[in-house]
């Protein structure tokens, strides 16, 4: 494994780790969401009502997609930067 390949491997590994750390930071959600339900109190009847608010939640589906793409690109680059044999 040459220097370039080692660097590609390191960057790929780093990207995957970061994507899973972000997932953990967002609370280990399964699916990525762009809206969440929040409860508020109805001032007239006193019951709680639910309302959608725009909020991005990073899900494991997104981390897996990023990991898959990273592995694919890293694999391609590892092959591309392989040591080519010099034939005389």
């Amino acid at each position, binding site marked *: 494994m040459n220097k370039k390949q080692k660097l590609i491997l390191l960057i790929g590994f780093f990207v995957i780790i970061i994507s899973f750390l972000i997932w953990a930071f967002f609370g280990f*959600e*399964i*699916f*990525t*969401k*762009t*809206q*969440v*339900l929040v409860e508020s109190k*109805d001032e*007239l*009847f006193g*019951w709680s*009502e*639910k309302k*959608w608010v725009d909020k991005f939640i990073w899900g494991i589906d997104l981390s897996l997609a990023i990991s898959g793409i990273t592995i694919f690109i890293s694999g391609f680059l590892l092959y591309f930067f392989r040591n080519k044999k010099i034939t005389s």
Partner: protein
Amino acid sequence: MKKIKFIFLIVTIFSPVLIAQGFKVKSTGSQSFNFEDKNGRNQITFYSATPLEDITGTANGISGTISFDVANFSKTLKGSLTVKVASMNSGIELRNQHLKSANWLNAEKYPDIVFTIKEAMDVKQIETNKLEFKVRGDFTMHGVTKEIIADAEATYLDESEQTKRRAPGDLLGVRAKFNVKLSDYGVNNQIIGNKVAESIEVSVNMVGSNKN
């Protein structure tokens, strides 16, 4: 003996009036409430457990009317409510598309979910303006109609400065809860690779006005 017979006759004749349950509010007579809400606050909430993640969604496209005699709610309640399948939101766009697709509720072919009231049962007066009861009616979803019984609560508010901020006229707040068994309505309970619970919990929170 004649006296006993007379008392029995009187009780028999007037018993429906004696056991009639209704609101003790300023308004009287027959009232009709419209539940079409332009602000989208009237809401159906549905909840289902899946092995991966529990799903909570809402639907705001509610319309319909409920009418009753204020003093005799239990015997006079009637009406029908409609929810637009297109207004259902589960918080994930892809899941919403699947929910409304032909594989699930088929919003194109069956755009409405309808509940038609047949009768109110076991009416209990909680407060002067609040009743707790069970409501029996026909629930139509995905082209299939089945009879269901929902636990419900209705609160009657006479028109006031406070209620006018929400809508003109007297207001009727209705909360209800019931379960819907998907297989009863011919709905496949697979959604984006997840098996949704066979029974969906449905909650209703809505406010209607008699001047809408």
